[in-house]
């Protein structure tokens, strides 16, 4: 056996375990779900389960609601994440030091506990509303409302996003920003023309993570979401567990997966473009 063949074989051996894992945990379930989602009530195969997704009023509302919460959450998380990352990078103050030491804490608190914490804090009889009551301030409904869901998404996603963006922004040399100021660029100009393009790749990674995390979220929507409309994750669980309609749940799962793939496509395309530019 030649050296090259040996090396190729060895590479194949090394890659096999992760490939098998991916196959068993991801690929086969997706294929199975897809096949299952095509089975109609009569036992045949058609697209009726998907038709229901878009014709049933409740389900259509769920899809729109999920997309709305996801888009708003992504926008807010990235906005706040960038703001924090920029503040941490350019502010030498004590406050920045404290933020740097504490902003990752939410990542170490389990989702269920954090969600119950939010209920206790922001619920109708939560302690924030009790604190504000003496001042005559009544809080609007936050828990069991989309506001609560968005707040929970911020809690879960800001730390990781900030961490990603911080490391990207830390990688931009101060001298590059100095030269932009030197030719007359203000803060906004520097952000949009220098910082954003130079951290664009990480921005896309962060967006992908937040988008997938929110669109597929279950714990918070299940515990503090309203009854209707619901996030797709909760709707899927209901169709699967309460209504016992495995095929319909599979169709929701495949649809959610397709929504995520859209972002995945953009991410892969931008990576491929960069690779091509480097060649």
């Amino acid at each position, binding site marked *: 056996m030649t050296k090259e063949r040996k090396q190729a074989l060895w590479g194949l051996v090394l890659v096999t375990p992760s490939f098998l894992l991916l196959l068993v945990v991801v690929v086969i379930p997706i294929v199975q779900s897809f096949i299952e989602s095509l089975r109609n009530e009569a036992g045949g195969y058609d697209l009726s389960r998907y038709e229901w997704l878009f014709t049933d009023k409740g389900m259509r509302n769920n899809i729109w609601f999920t997309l709305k919460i996801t888009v708003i959450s992504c926008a807010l998380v990235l906005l706040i994440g960038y703001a924090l990352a920029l503040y941490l990078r350019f502010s030498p103050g004590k406050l920045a030091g404290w933020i740097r030491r504490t902003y990752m804490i939410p990542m170490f608190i389990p989702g269920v506990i954090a969600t119950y914490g939010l209920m206790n804090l922001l619920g109708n009889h939560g302690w924030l509303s009790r604190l504000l009551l003496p001042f005559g301030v009544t809080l609007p409904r936050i828990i069991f409302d989309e506001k609560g869901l968005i707040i929970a998404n911020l809690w879960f996603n800001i730390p990781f996003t900030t961490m990603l963006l911080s490391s990207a922004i830390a990688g931009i*040399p101060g*001298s*590059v920003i*100095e*030269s*932009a*100021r*030197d*030719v*007359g*660029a*203000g803060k906004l*100009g520097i952000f949009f*023309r*220098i910082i954003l*393009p*130079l951290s664009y790749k990480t921005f896309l990674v962060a967006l992908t993570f937040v988008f997938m995390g929110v669109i597929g979220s279950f714990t918070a929507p299940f515990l503090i979401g309203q009854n209707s409309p619901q996030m797709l994750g909760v709707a899927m669980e209901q169709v699967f567990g309460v209504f016992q309609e495995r095929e319909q749940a599979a169709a929701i799962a495949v649809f959610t997966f397709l929504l995520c793939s859209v972002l995945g496509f953009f991410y892969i395309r931008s990576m491929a473009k960069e690779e091509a530019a480097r060649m």
Partner: protein
Amino acid sequence: MSIQLSIKDLSKRYRTGEGVSDINLDVAKGELVTLLGPSGCGKTTVLRSIGGFLEPDSGDIQIEGRSVVKLPPEKRPTTMVFQSYNLWPHMSVYENLAFGLKIRKKSKAEIREAVAGALRLVRLPGAEKKLPGQLSGGQQQRVALARSLLLQPAVLLLDEPFSALDAKLRHEMREELREIQAQTGLTMVFVTHDQEEALALSDRIVVMNNGRVEQIGEPQRIYDDPASLYVARFIGKMNFLDGTAQGEFIRVGRGEFPNPKGLAGPVIAAVRPEDVRIGAADDRALSGRIKQSMVLGHYAEVSIETETGGTVRSFLPKDAVRELDIGQNVGISFAKTIAYPHTNESTGG
């Protein structure tokens, strides 16, 4: 000639204790002034204060008669060429150059023309579409120079712009900068630790040491008449000899040299190697013994051990060393000496 840049009593101290104190400097319109000194002497602090990247503790900086000391860099009529080029890696050469002009709301046609003109000036015509990563170090620095030039700053600041380039390229860029300055008539403040660069480029040199100005003057003046022992050591090659000043003369061994400054007591006599003359041994002259001679191309460097125990180096025409033998006793005279009072830190050199 009108004053373009005026620095008054500028002071800036860092927490480490380093910094600059009481810097005063006027730069005329169209002048190229170099801040020269070793690293840590404060030259970059002065430059960055002019550019607005550092806020001085006290003092004022005026450009075209207007105080700019409170303005941020983006509002100052200065541009800077940085040591590490600082081009924006995601932008093409054209975009790098156009960025500042776009901020100034210039029309597309104006920008295109200005970019092409600036690239011609730095001898990089047609490089518009390239990315900085596709250019060599020298080309990147040319682009950085063009980026600063086309904004037509009131004062162009250059922070050791050629120090990352190899010696040959550095030499070329130096000449090009001089040409560009002649063509554009821009006022420039140039920071370097390379005395040769400073001597070659500058209209005037500001020699700095420990955060203070040691001497300001034209290159030839600084070379011929260093104001302090520090400047004498820093600029060019120099021999230092211990001597004693008495009345009109400074005695070094058996030799006597004029004492124009009227110093008294122990002094250090400084003599440029090209001012050392070698003759026949003489009872009334400083004597020495030839230790070594090296022909270095068009001239020769001769080392002579003096009767006082020191070593004097002399630059001679290469033919003159043929008449000298190693170990030969000679008389040494100096065409010109400069003397400095002897202080504790002034021995050696």
